[in-house]
């Protein structure tokens, strides 16, 4: 994981690209909707969440590709550490570098779209719980599509449907927070998803990597 973090640090532009992408997608919403603050406010949770899902998808595309091409992935497979642990560490490093900035930025962007007060907090917490799940799911897709031509597009087809529950719960939590305070149910379900994904998906990632390298 330390290795991955230091690699990501040497490729700062990747982080900037993903963050810039996230911000740009969000700014597209007001441009397309026109200057109606109320409409914008209604769409804000969906907007931020869709942008986060897409940003996660484009950043995960390359998660294993470089390691695969230069042979590092073979070394990861042969490492004494169990592959699930290695996979989890890789995803964790990726999330810290590319997912966490989105979480941190989200209140500011939510505010720009007209969210306020507690809604901003709920938005950040929902992303904090949700984006690691997106990263884990995306990593499964990235591992499955290793070495496939047009892997990125295929990965989107495979993984976007799996993003749906996270998206529904995440955006739902923020929408609930706008009208009532019954957002805890959404957030706890999101937490439950994360709790299930953390031990299970690394197994899937490891399995997919073994197949990719066979």
């Amino acid at each position, binding site marked *: 994981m330390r290795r991955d973090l230091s*690699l990501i640090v040497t490729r700062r532009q990747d982080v900037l690209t993903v963050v810039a992408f996230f911000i740009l997608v969000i700014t597209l919403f007001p441009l397309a909707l026109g200057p109606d603050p109320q409409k914008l406010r209604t769409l804000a949770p969906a907007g931020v969440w869709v942008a986060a899902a897409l940003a996660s998808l484009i950043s995960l595309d390359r998660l294993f590709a470089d390691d695969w091409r230069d042979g590092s992935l073979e070394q990861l497979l042969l490492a004494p550490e169990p592959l699930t642990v290695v996979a989890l560490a890789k995803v964790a490093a990726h999330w810290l570098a590319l997912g966490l900035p989105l979480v941190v930025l989200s209140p500011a962007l939510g505010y720009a779209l007209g969210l306020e007060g507690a809604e901003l907090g709920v938005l950040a917490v929902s992303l904090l719980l949700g984006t690691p799940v997106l990263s884990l799911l995306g990593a499964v897709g990235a591992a499955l599509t290793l070495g496939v031509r047009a892997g990125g597009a295929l990965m989107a087809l495979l993984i976007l449907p799996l993003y749906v529950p996270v998206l529904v719960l995440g955006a739902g939590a923020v929408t609930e927070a706008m009208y009532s305070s019954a957002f805890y149910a959404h957030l706890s379900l999101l937490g439950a998803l994360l709790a299930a994904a953390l031990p299970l998906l690394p197994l899937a990632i490891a399995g997919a990597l073994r197949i990719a390298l066979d």
Partner: protein
Amino acid sequence: MDTGPVGRATTAPSPPHAGKAAPRGELEIAGLSCRRGDQTLFSGVSLSLASGELLFVRGRNGSGKTTLLRILCGLTEPATGEVRWRGQPIRRLEEAARRELLYVGHRDAVKEELTPLENLDIHQGLRGERGDLERQLDALEEAGLGGREDIPVRYLSQGQRRRTALARLLVSPARLWILDEPLTALDRSAVAWLFERIAAYLREGGIVVTTSHQSIDGLPEPRILDLD
């Protein structure tokens, strides 16, 4: 055993040890075959390697050398047969046994963004070895990268990149080296250095499996497995 750069010629044909039940060794290969698509690359490869032995896998392009080496280190599942390292199936090795195996593949796992020193360090970290800066610097020096330890590999030549990968052999304690085309891009002095290293390693009781299209004159007498 002759260890100098001009060692024994190794053109003498040696039986491929196919089919026979081999005596017990550390690395045991039994009845391996490999299919890619509907083509059988090789079949019935059985042999056993004991401490201090060198196996040279020979074959034309596409004969399955790399695949065989990948099977030997447990990356690829063979169609039939099995590989055992000290009695354990290679794909289900315990943690300690995995550390005994060192694979330097065709794709050498050198990160271009990092310097040779950082590359060595992450290699050791990955294997759970405590990185010792002095030892790493010595290894790079010996591999002919003295003075270039801190330049990102991107700015180094192909041969220096390969030397970075091979410097791993010097820092990691292992019982078995699996080296796929280690001579690619190496100049003559680096080849001589590597041969000397391999010879010394075999004397210490290590086992080496390797392939090459180049001449291996200078290596100690290998056992030869011909895949053609």
